[in-house]
């Protein structure tokens, strides 16, 4: 298929359709409203169902219903909306239901601003809603990668029966880039879901539930989740190392999403102008975090510079990967202030 030029948000909508998703529930919020707008227009062509919910709270519970009856379901939102969804996602995770959730992150806390930020890292990777659950979190750094990860997210959600979040920042959502779409999934080829609540015909009722009044049962469900998360940690870590393959590095930068692209440009510039060796490590899965891969690259570096559009939410994970073996500096701006390649280059020269 030929490449088309498309806005990130619209490409995300199309990728979900390609992945076999025909059900979207969501609520408008900048900077991701183009996803619901795109699907509201496009879904009728492919027999999809679009519902504009009354709130993010309702939207995520509609996903609970849709996933519970066995369908591939999607919602997209941005930071404050994702906070509102936390309760519902906790239920969905506890019930072992597959959903795909997109956060096009904007600046926070509070109402914050509508410009790009990466200040929902801790929320996404450490503790979104209540209870012992995890989100599988994937962070694209281009529109093409957003498409590929959305396409895959539905399979991962079905495979592990768990919510999967694709987390991009406002730039990913608003930017246009050439993109090539994967082929349309045949709906008949999607995994069958015998656990779904589709009517108790010739079988005992299926119950989608996360209430366990007996402590042993509640304990057991949390450990069942943990077992699944251990498996995800073992198999689903993803990362990219950029310009890390020529001996000792003066600086290894660690950044994800669009920030990683800005870092790559800065790395190229400083390599060219200062003859310094600069590499960039980019986690693609934010949870599970690619600790080992980062540790391997960090061994080559004199020092590490973490760059984020936040006040340093990922730094602890980098510390965990490196375990004190290298000095770690941080550079970040947030609130919609996006560090430019020149800003990052200046930090590299310090």
């Amino acid at each position: 298929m030929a490449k088309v030029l498309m806005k990130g948000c619209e490409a995300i909508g199309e990728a979900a359709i390609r992945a076999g998703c025909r059900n979207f529930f969501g609520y408008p919020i900048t900077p991701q409203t183009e996803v619901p707008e795109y699907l509201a227009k496009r879904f009728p062509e492919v027999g999809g169902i679009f519902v504009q919910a009354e709130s993010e709270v309702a939207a995520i519970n509609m996903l609970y219903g849709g996933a519970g009856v066995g369908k591939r379901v999607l919602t997209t939102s941005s930071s404050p909306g994702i906070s509102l969804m936390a309760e519902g996602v906790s239920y969905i995770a506890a019930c072992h239901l597959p959903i795909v959730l997109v956060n096009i992150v904007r600046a926070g806390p509070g109402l914050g601003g509508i410009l790009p930020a990466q200040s929902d890292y801790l929320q996404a990777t450490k503790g979104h809603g209540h209870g012992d659950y995890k989100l599988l979190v994937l962070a694209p750094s281009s529109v093409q990668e957003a498409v590929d990860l959305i396409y895959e997210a539905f399979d991962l959600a079905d495979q592990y029966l768990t919510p999967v979040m694709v987390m991009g920042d406002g730039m990913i959502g608003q930017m246009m880039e050439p993109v090539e779409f994967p082929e349309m999934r045949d709906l008949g080829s999607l995994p069958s879901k015998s656990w779904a609540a589709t009517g108790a015909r010739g079988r005992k009722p299926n119950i989608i539930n996360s209430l366990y009044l007996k402590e042993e049962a509640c304990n057991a469900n949390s450990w069942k989740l943990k077992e699944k998360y251990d498996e995800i940690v073992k198999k689903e870590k993803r990362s990219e190392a950029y310009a890390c393959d020529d001996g000792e590095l003066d600086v290894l930068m660690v950044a994800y999403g669009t920030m990683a692209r800005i870092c790559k440009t800065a790395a190229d510039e400083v390599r060219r102008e200062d003859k310094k060796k600069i590499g960039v490590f980019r986690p693609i899965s934010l949870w599970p975090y690619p600790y080992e891969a980062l540790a391997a690259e960090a061994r080559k570096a004199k020092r590490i510079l973490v760059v984020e559009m936040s006040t340093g939410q990922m730094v602890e994970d980098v510390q965990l990967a490196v375990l004190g073996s290298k000095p770690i500096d941080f550079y970040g701006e947030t609130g919609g202030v996006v560090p430019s390649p020149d800003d990052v280059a200046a930090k590299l020269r310090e």
Partner: protein
Amino acid sequence: MKKIFGYPESLTPSHTHYCPGCTHGTIHRLVAESLDELGVRERTVGIAPVGCSVLAYNYFNCDMFEAAHGRAPAVATGAKRCRPDLVLFTYQGDGDLASIGTAEIIHAANRGEKITVIFVNNAIYGMTGGQMAPTTMPGQVTTTCPFGRNTEHEGHPIRVVEMINTLETPAFLARVSSHTPLHVIEAKKAIREAFRLQVEGVCFSMVEVLSICPTNWGLTTAESNKWLEETMMPYYPLGVLKRPAVDRAPDPMAIALPEGV
């Protein structure tokens, strides 16, 4: 020997956890009988709330969800939109539906979701032990309005079906009671009609069922029935508030209460 009375197929043969005198069990039965009579048990999915009927998924013999507090109509919306061939019902109390879940019920009704909502109004929070509900009567004592509901501070009780009746979207809206056998017969008609309209794909349907809570009201069952009749019923009038025109012979079993009370 001929069996003349037993569990409906849509109920599991279990002992419920409900308090003596509570009418949840009765209302469960009315739902189950309706599903049996319409022959839809095997394609029905119910949504249990948070509240006294949180464990309803153990009592209905059909596929069930347990929803977050107040969100059952959103869960039912998602399920029904994804699988329009299924019959969806929510079973919610007054804290769940009329307090934390107001947005979800109003918008599900307004979108005309083809779901059936059974709304049990006993004017109090039961499961958490007798706190004030949006439906608590003026002057009624609860643990969080220990001097009686003061309408200056807490506002007036919400008449939910009347509120939903202001929406333009076609719907079947009725209020019934469950405190005497005669009222139970009428309640059954309303619930059955509500499900029938969903099965025929006609409209959103909702039945509010007045219920007693002897435990948290601090009254005997007989006193509770009297209180419901004297205090609640004048404020929450029974009847069909809205019924869409349906192009078919009238259901001989249809609820015969006066229209638009």
